[in-house]
């Protein structure tokens, strides 16, 4: 059955049309339905120190008399939280966040009133404790499949530059597998990089990860927080079948200017932020440039394959009484080699520009969010013979997100328009499809709600649909549920289920780790849409104020994955076949936060298996259906991250262990003589490498220890100098990246990478 993969999208076409029509009807009817006798409370939380919004602040709405919790929630990236349809009466509003004084005030809501409460939290001087769980009043933050990553979390992972980086942090997450230390490819719970979607303030960016897997376009300095959905995400996220990385950048300081720069052997950076108009307009600028090519020969003592990259981020933010807006521009560029002897030059570039506004005025029944922008991505591969292959994706997009009440039920809904072009110039490598130029507008809609039948249970159903001019609307129901057995967040059981589609695939030669060149191509015309089903269940337990642990089991079933065809002969050729995949596993994580000590440990078990018709795949095996573990099937991953403050010094350590990933062994180096047209005594024959069973063996285990020690010196009232020394792979282990069957070379990952970084900040 695998060989004749059905166009599953069309199986639901009738149902999809009904669903989409229903959704449109809901959207049309919704604004007219509003419970006028109820009230709306809208809370906007920002920092008094720099005026920036605080994402993730705990907002508790308490009974004014008894102090019992009635509602709760956490603020979004704009520091905003909306409670609609609440009874008009008096409440005590309590807002808390790590490092800030808890704010408490009494409010009284009139019938039909929409109240916006703007709160500026005051920094608590000398506050050193991490998140303090306030008995039963802590709101839910642990959600299945979701990892909320703070700026502080990113800063804890040792990085060979001043400040942390999201790329380094993500690799410390048990669910995230990288293919090595080069290439910028991240696999999340069995999903390939093209099955993941990266958003930065709602703007899509295809590959923001640099060629060195230690870096991305998201350094600690610019990030506000990141939501990593390893699966089970709601319908507000459409267009990815595996995972979502939703990055929120922080606005520049609204109160005062500050800036600085840093330098390390591997990178230099400059940053500047400050108010254009104090309190309401701000700007943030950051630029980074790698110095790896200049320094590696001196520090590593051997010739390393070249790699060069930079990223630039500019962000303008406006914060008004009734709405906030920001305009963001990001560009990245990467260039280099993965294998020094292959002389294949890889490069990729992202350009993203866009704006996003959120309106929350009293006159609006509910907040409204609008995003518009443009995203450009291109990647190329140049062979020694100067043959260049390239693939480019352009996206012009618009998104609208709103909330309404329908029969007393809050409905969050939205739609997105995305005009995409896919262009590829493939030379001779991709023989199954020639160079192409497609234009594909994509429309997606979604609706979701939150239902809390009691204080123990929260249910979040959502529905989404997506269509292009060549594909019928998809039907993507999703469900997330949280159950707190004792009514507090000390324990939480959560479940997520869902159906996911995407309308484009990225195809690369998965057999060849020496290149990450990816051809992006729309699906749905000749090739059925990729589809996935997710099921995740998790349990989280807090013990005391400092210790948290959780376990999560997951199952993902992928359909219509485009994989490169194989040939028994090692040569550059990529045709595609369709495979189905099954991923299952579990993660266990424990975290202890009690300053000056921080320790987190995580173990992940995963099994990824693909199956495809052997004939379609080109597999040189007897079975009609070939089941195999793809190259990213890492079964075991264990991580420990710790930090300790000793006096004025902060020491950080990260150790990572990963079991071996599958690879295909070579059994023969041959010169094939095509008899009888060639004759052994006259013709040398054609060189070919003969492979054993595809992915039949596993590479050796991988482990690496990174350490750093840093200290900040106050050089004056307005100048700080931070020095950090450390090393990546401190015990200089020869961790294999891959074995190149063409050159018979073992390619190792980065050897010990010592560094000393300096960062100066002025304000």
């Amino acid at each position, binding site marked *: 059955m695998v060989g004749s993969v059905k166009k599953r999208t069309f199986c639901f076409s009738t149902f999809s049309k009904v669903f989409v029509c229903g959704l449109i009807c809901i959207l049309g009817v919704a604004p007219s339905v509003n419970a006028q006798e109820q009230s709306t409370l809208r809370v906007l939380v920002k920092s008094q120190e720099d005026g920036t919004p605080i994402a993730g602040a705990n907002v508790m709405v308490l009974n004014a008399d008894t102090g019992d919790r009635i509602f709760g929630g956490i603020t979004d990236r704009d520091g905003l939280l909306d409670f609609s349809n609440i009874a008009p009466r008096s409440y005590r509003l309590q807002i808390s966040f790590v490092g800030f004084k808890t704010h408490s005030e009494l409010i009284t809501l009139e019938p039909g009133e929409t109240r916006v409460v703007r709160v500026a939290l005051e920094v608590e001087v000398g506050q050193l404790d991490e998140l303090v769980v306030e008995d039963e009043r802590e709101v839910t933050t642990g959600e299945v499949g979701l990892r909320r990553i703070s700026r502080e979390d990113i800063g804890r992972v040792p990085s060979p530059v001043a400040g942390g980086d999201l790329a380094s942090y993500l690799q410390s997450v048990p669910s995230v597998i990288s293919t090595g230390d080069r290439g910028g490819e991240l696999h999340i719970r069995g999903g390939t990089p093209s099955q993941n979607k990266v958003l930065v303030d709602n703007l899509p960016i295809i590959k923001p990860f640099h060629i060195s897997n230690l870096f991305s376009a998201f350094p600690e300095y610019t990030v506000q927080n990141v939501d990593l959905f390893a699966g089970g995400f709601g319908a507000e996220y459409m267009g990815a079948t595996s995972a979502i990385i939703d990055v929120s950048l922080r606005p520049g300081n609204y109160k005062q200017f500050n800036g600085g720069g840093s330098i390390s052997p591997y990178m230099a950076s400059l940053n500047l932020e400050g108010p254009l108009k104090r309190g309401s307009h701000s700007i943030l600028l950051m630029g980074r440039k790698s110095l790896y090519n200049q320094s590696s020969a001196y520090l590593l003592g051997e010739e390393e394959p070249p790699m060069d990259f930079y990223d630039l981020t500019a962000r303008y933010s406006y914060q008004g009484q009734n709405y906030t807006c920001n305009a963001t521009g990001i560009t990245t560029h990467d260039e280099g080699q993965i294998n020094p002897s292959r002389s294949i030059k890889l490069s990729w570039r992202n350009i993203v520009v866009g704006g996003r506004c959120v309106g929350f005025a009293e006159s609006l029944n509910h907040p409204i969010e609008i995003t518009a922008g443009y995203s450009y991505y291109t990647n190329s591969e140049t062979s020694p013979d100067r043959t260049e292959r390239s693939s480019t994706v352009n996206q012009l997009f618009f998104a609208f997100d709103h909330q309404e009440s329908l029969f007393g039920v809050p409905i969050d809904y939205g739609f997105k328009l995305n005009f995409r072009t896919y262009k590829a110039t493939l030379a001779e490598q991709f023989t199954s499809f020639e160079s192409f130029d497609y234009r594909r507008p994509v429309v997606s809609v979604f609706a979701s709600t939150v239902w809390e039948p009691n204080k123990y249970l929260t249910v979040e159903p959502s529905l989404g649909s997506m269509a292009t001019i060549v594909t019928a609307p998809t039907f993507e129901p999703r469900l997330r549920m949280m159950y707190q057995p004792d009514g507090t967040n000390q324990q939480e059981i959560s479940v997520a289920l869902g159906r996911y589609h995407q309308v484009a695939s990225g195809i690369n030669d998965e057999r060849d780790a020496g290149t990450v060149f990816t051809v992006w191509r729309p699906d749905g015309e000749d090739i059925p849409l990729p589809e996935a089903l997710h099921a995740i269940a998790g349990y989280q337990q807090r013990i005391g104020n400092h210790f948290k642990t959780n376990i999560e089991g997951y199952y993902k079933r992928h359909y219509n994955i485009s994989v490169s065809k194989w040939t028994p002969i090692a040569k550059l050729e990529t045709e595609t076949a369709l495979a189905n995949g099954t991923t299952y596993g579990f993660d266990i994580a424990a975290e202890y936060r009690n300053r000056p000590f921080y320790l987190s440990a995580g173990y992940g078990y995963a099994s990824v298996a693909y199956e495809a018709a052997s004939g379609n795949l080109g597999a040189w095996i007897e079975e009609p259906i070939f089941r195999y573990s793809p190259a990213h099937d890492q079964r075991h991953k264990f991580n420990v991250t710790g930090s300790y403050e000793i006096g004025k010094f902060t020491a950080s350590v990260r150790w990572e262990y990963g079991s071996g990933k599958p690879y295909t062994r*070579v059994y023969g180096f041959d010169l094939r003589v095509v008899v009888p047209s060639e004759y*052994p005594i006259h013709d040398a024959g054609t060189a070919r490498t003969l492979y054993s069973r595809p992915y039949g063996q596993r590479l050796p285990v991988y482990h690496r220890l990174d350490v750093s020690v840093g200290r900040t010196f106050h050089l004056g009232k307005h100048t700080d100098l931070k020095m950090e020394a450390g090393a990546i792979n401190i015990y200089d*282990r020869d961790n294999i990246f891959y074995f190149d069957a063409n050159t018979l070379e073992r390619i190792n990952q980065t050897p010990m990478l010592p560094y000393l970084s300096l960062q100066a900040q002025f304000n």
Partner: protein
Amino acid sequence: MNNMIKIQALGINSPFLLLLGLITLCGCDPRFNPIDTEKGRYSVYGTLDIDKDVNYIRVKNLNIPLAHDTLKTLDATVTLENLRNGTSEKLQDVVFEVQGVRLHNYRTTMPINPRTPYLLTIDPTEGKEIRALATTPSIAQTQVIPQQIRCHTDFKIVFDPVDPEAGIQAAIEFEFRNDRYTLRSPLKSYITQQNNKAILQLTPHLVLQLVPQLPAIPSRTLCEQLTSDIFTVSYYHFGPGFRNSTTSDSLDIPGGTADFFGFYTDTLTIELDLESEKQTQ
């Protein structure tokens, strides 16, 4: 314990620092063998041509990368045995060097008879011997029907016997406007197998139409442009066991990979009757 004592002496009572010290000792290099020496040891390429007095068979050690394959002699003894009469011959290595790679071709002068199985044995100095079997085909008799062939006459060439599994391959060569042309691959579609017979059936006109390189001229005058009335048909066929495939697995033999076949090739000529056709017109 010493580490713990030192840590405590420094006033740092942190178990993770001890852990750090322990795992620092783990930077050892793992064993890794990307070459599978179990699956295959040798490749064999060659044909046993019934018509030739000397045949050559290439034998290569698969486990040695090409850049390192500089052995003056192969680490094995190669023999060929006629399984019908039991005679055998230890083959002599004729080394053929290309860009520093030494290729070992084994020469045999053993008479190659039709419908006879021959066993090639590679006996390495270490490990199990490897065998490849080639059975020579029968020498097919040919019959051309009808005898008088005009431009649009549907003619047949019957090859008998031909092993159904191995089939037969043919090419037709002719002279057209003083240039020689050969029709090869498209002919496969016009060969049918009936039990132990192979039949090639088409018309001379169609032969000319199937050659893409012919100059563009009106189809009805194609035969008139032939310089010669002679079609030369060359054909060859393999013995039982031949499979014409390019994937490695289909060529597998226990312990390696092989293209090793019994083989027979011959030619026949067909004289076209174009003059009488002109007169009829």
